[in-house]
């Protein structure tokens, strides 16, 4: 049997290199995309969690405040925490490494957005207390001392401009001990002296070595958090008492302060990213589905091309099951090769995918690392577990067909005629039932905040639409005969006849291509609609002339604020007539991270233009909320937590949990985390006078905002770096972020479509090989090469046209599910449905042209066929 496999399967595979390579690459791409997305998703969450664990060190419990940290004056009253173990107060934040070449540019910015900066995690601790928590291994302090004592460490840091960085960062950036490092925090650029270098251990491993250690007082100064600390780390004397201690601490802690395990922040981030990542994962599966379609095609071609050989083998005594095993073996060989190649490709794709998604993750969510984690045996097992069984499944149909080849008929080549299909009711009933079920499923709500029924509904649409393909082709075959014959001549007549006779064979190819195209259409419609909605929203709501933000982009766990110098520079400018400062905080709500925002409601009402969802008199309701315990909430927050105007939301404040009435719900597309906004007066009452994280400025009519922006930036000293967007630049920036968010989507889609095109070429080749007798006959009857080529290319274009037609319909249905079910349930956004007509027309032309091009090789093969002597 092995000998037969070698001679009958492996040799032809090696001989027909193009087809074999195409299939292996198809499977490899499918596997690679899935593993790459797994790695990419893991990179952001694991990156955050690794950083968390590295910085948390041995911390058992952390004591955290509500959004704005812990008031330092409370520390003496928390002395009792020492009953449980050792405590260490911590200030932590992210800074940006200032590029040497960026120094000297007065504004340090570009119109398109912030320049790419390298994030550095800064940890401020009291080194005397912190030693038990984290392992700091100083490499060298320059004095030739073999061991660094705590006392010496303390001396290194007792200066507000002293910092210890990692050896890795120093080496990478060419920084030296005693030298200077410039960090940007908020809008302030500060120079620090490097007093020590840390070995690559403990917290020094954070963000690939981008870590800096300061004294806690220096960090408070740097982050403008004087009088506040971010948390108190607690190292338990008896670590096994963790759960009991957590319960015991709760009631003893003052209002607004709570105890949690450090891992909880990781879990919160994981929840926050889950929807974004789940959608990527779902998308990555399409490439595999299309890759498997290639396996189906290749094995089909193999069976069709060697039908007579199979007949001969059968005549010589090879059993049906043995023939089945031979062709399943072919699929297995392709799958193994594809999987091995796929695992190698996954690493490359993961790097590309991380590059494409890290901008989104770090812009919208967290500071992420720029490299995916290493591949594990789990990934290898996943690849093998998907590649091999699914390839065997894909090959089952043609392999079964091969096992049923009759010995005599195949040897004479008379059994390859397709049965002409008749439209039977079941061809319509089954798909309509499935599509009906899809419609029903789309109406069901989320499960644990996840749109599982939405995904099943989308899957049912794909299955239903695929099942209806034969009926559609039957109908089109009837309808298009006259047109093709009349308009495309004898080649059109022949192409029509060939395709009509091969409906059972090509339905699978058409369905596979239609599935890929439908995803392209669905994603294009969804993104197009989303983009239009955002453009409208930005147009309506972004009214201020200038938007001022800190030099470093804030992310979760890294607040960045504006200093009084920058605020004054804006407010003092003679052309600025009104300023609305706002402040954002990360807040834990129902175990999830949401944004608590504060703004001046009166300025927003008189100058801004929020779009309200409810109530109808939302502006009056917002005005009434000024100074009251009332908030407005974003639509994603309202959808995720089932809140409406008039409801109450419970928020933890430094004074303990408080309830706030929901005055209105407004449309917001800036964050899917959900935003709660209160008037600044209310916010200050509960959270104190915190520096703002941004400013919206309104200038006099007729004044050029670009000029005001330049003047403000020019007025800032060397130590301050603000980012000021004009209204127009901010709108551009919003759309730039939007487009970069969806770049990965297009990339994944492109892979699926390329693989599907390969599939179309394969299908046509199957048809050509299957009809080689007829094609030879056609040549004998007088058809020249050009006519045969044209006929096959018309067939290819028709396959493309039908696939695109089915794909368009399927895609529009999918886009409805994406827009009205999956997006609403995942992110809480209302997207206005918009049909990107121009794109759809263009893509239809491109797909039909591309499939016609995919038919070139099969067409050339067809044109070369001529009846051989024995036929």
């Amino acid at each position: 049997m092995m000998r037969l496999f070698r001679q009958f399967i492996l040799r032809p595979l090696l001989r027909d290199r193009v087809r074999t390579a195409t299939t292996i690459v198809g499977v490899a791409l499918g596997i690679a995309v899935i593993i790459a997305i797994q790695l990419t998703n893991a990179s952001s969450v694991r990156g955050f969690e690794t950083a968390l664990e590295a910085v948390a060190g041995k911390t058992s419990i952390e004591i955290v405040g509500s959004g704005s940290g812990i008031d330092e004056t409370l520390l003496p009253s928390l002395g009792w925490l020492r009953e449980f173990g050792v405590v260490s107060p911590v200030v932590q934040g992210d800074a940006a490494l200032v590029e040497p070449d960026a120094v000297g540019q007065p504004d340090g910015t570009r119109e398109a957005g912030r320049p790419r900066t390298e994030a550095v995690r800064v940890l401020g601790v009291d080194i005397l207390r912190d030693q038990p928590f984290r392992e700091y291994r100083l490499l060298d302090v320059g004095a030739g001392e073999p061991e660094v004592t705590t006392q010496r460490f303390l001396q290194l840091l007792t200066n507000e401009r002293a910092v210890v960085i990692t050896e890795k960062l120093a080496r990478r950036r060419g920084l030296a001990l005693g030298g200077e490092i410039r960090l940007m925090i908020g809008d302030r650029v500060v120079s620090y002296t490097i007093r020590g270098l840390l070995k690559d251990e403990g917290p020094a491993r954070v963000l690939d070595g981008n870590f800096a250690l300061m004294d806690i007082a220096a960090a408070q100064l740097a982050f403008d958090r004087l009088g506040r600390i971010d948390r108190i780390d607690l190292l338990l004397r008896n670590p096994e008492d963790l759960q009991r201690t957590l319960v015991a601490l709760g009631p003893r802690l003052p209002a607004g302060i709570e105890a949690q395990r450090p891992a909880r922040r990781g879990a919160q981030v994981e929840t926050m990213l889950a929807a974004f990542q789940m959608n990527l994962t779902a998308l990555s599966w399409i490439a595999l589905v299309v890759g498997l379609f290639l396996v189906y095609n290749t094995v089909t071609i193999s069976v069709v091309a060697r039908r007579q050989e199979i007949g001969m083998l059968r005549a010589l005594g090879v059993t049906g099951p043995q023939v089945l095993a031979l062709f399943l073996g072919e699929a297995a060989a392709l799958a193994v090769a594809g999987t091995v190649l796929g695992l190698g490709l996954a690493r490359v794709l993961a790097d590309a995918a991380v590059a494409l998604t890290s901008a989104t993750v770090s812009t919208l969510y967290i500071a992420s690392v720029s490299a995916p984690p290493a591949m594990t045996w789990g990934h290898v097992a996943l690849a093998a577990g998907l590649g091999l069984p699914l390839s065997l499944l894909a090959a089952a149909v043609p392999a079964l067909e091969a096992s049923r080849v009759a010995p005599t008929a195949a040897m004479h080549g008379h059994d390859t005629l397709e049965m002409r299909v008749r439209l039977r009711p079941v061809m319509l009933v089954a798909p309509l039932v499935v599509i009906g079920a899809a419609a029903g499923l789309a109406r069901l709500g989320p499960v644990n905040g996840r749109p599982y029924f939405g995904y099943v509904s989308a899957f049912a649409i794909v299955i239903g639409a695929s099942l209806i393909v034969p009926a559609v082709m039957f109908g089109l075959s009837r309808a298009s005969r006259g047109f093709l014959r009349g308009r495309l001549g004898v080649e059109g007549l022949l192409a029509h006849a060939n395709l009509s006779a091969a409906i059972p064979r090509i339905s699978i190819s058409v369905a596979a291509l239609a599935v890929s195209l439908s995803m392209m259409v669905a994603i294009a419609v969804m993104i197009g609609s989303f983009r239009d909605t955002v453009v409208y929203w930005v147009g309506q709501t972004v009214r201020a002339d200038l938007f001022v933000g800190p030099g470093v982009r804030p992310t979760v766990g890294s607040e960045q604020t504006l200093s009084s110098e920058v605020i004054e520079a804006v407010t003092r400018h003679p052309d600025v007539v009104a300023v609305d400062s706002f402040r954002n905080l990360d807040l834990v709500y129902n175990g999830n991270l949401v944004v608590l925002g504060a703004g001046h409601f009166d300025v927003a009402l008189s100058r801004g233009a929020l779009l309200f969802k409810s109530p109808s008199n939302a502006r009056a309701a917002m005005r009434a909320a000024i100074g009251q315990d009332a908030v407005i909430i974003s639509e994603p927050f309202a959808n995720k937590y089932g809140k409406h105007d008039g409801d109450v939301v419970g928020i933890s404040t430094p004074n303990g949990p408080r309830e706030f009435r929901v005055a209105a719900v407004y449309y917001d597309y800036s964050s899917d985390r959900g935003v709660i906004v209160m008037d600044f007066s209310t916010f200050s009452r509960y959270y104190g006078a915190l520096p703002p994280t941004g400013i919206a400025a309104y200038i006099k009519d007729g004044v050029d905002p670009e000029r005001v922006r330049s003047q403000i930036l020019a007025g800032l000293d060397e130590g301050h770096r603000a980012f000021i967007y004009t209204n127009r630049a901010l709108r551009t920036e919003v759309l730039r972020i939007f487009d970069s968010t969806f770049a990965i989507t297009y990339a994944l889609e492109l892979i699926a479509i390329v693989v599907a095109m390969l599939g179309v070429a394969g299908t046509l080749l199957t048809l050509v090989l299957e009809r080689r007798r007829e094609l030879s006959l056609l040549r004998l009857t007088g058809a020249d090469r050009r006519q045969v080529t044209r006929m096959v290319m018309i067939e290819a274009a028709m396959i493309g046209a039908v696939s695109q037609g089915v794909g368009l319909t399927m895609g529009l249905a999918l886009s409805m599910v994406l827009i009205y079910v999956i997006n609403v349930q995942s992110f809480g956004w209302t997207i206005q449905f918009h049909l990107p007509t121009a794109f759809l027309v263009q893509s239809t032309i491109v797909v039909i042209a591309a499939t016609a091009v995919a038919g070139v090789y099969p067409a050339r093969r067809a044109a070369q066929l001529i009846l051989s002597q024995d036929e």
Partner: protein
Amino acid sequence: MPLLAASNLQKTYVSGDARVAALAGVSFSLDAGDFVALMGPSGCGKSTLLHLCGAMDRPTAGQLLLDGRNLAALGDDELTHVRREQVGFVFQFFNLLPTLTIADNIALPCLLAGVTPQEADRRTRELAGRVGITPRLDHYPQQVSGGEMQRAAIARALAHQPALVVADEPTGNLDSDNGARVLALLVELNREMGITILLATHSADVAAAAKRVLRMKDGMFE
């Protein structure tokens, strides 16, 4: 001038180191209106000779003139045009395109040659009437009998009004009744329409219907 003239026609097939001489120097000629039967055992070279005369293949050596043109010197595209314009084929296994109706099969050579659909349709109906398959025009090949398929194949071979019809064992796959009807049809077409026919057969009865019989053995005429 004869319609077809072969002079020292040779055809050798090469497969690896093996060389098989299918035709070892054949000379003959065919006048317009001739009906010639080639007879001989399997492997004697009669199908090879038919393929060369039908412009399906090129000889290894020798000259083959069809209506004054040397087929041996023509390229693939030119041979295609010869087949399209001057030769009609009738095969043992009918070789109708299974995806086309009988009517479309008959019209196909006309359409490939650029004849208008209306003219192709007119010729199809006329020939279908002539060979007696008008009621079957809208059927597909697999829906009609072997005899009807062969009559349709004959109509197809005549549709583009070729100078020469090449028939390879046209009755070989038919029962005796249908075989006799097909043979009678060929004789009638030759006699009444003046169609030139070159036919290969094993059967002495079929050969007897021809005006002239050429016997072959080992790639040569006896």
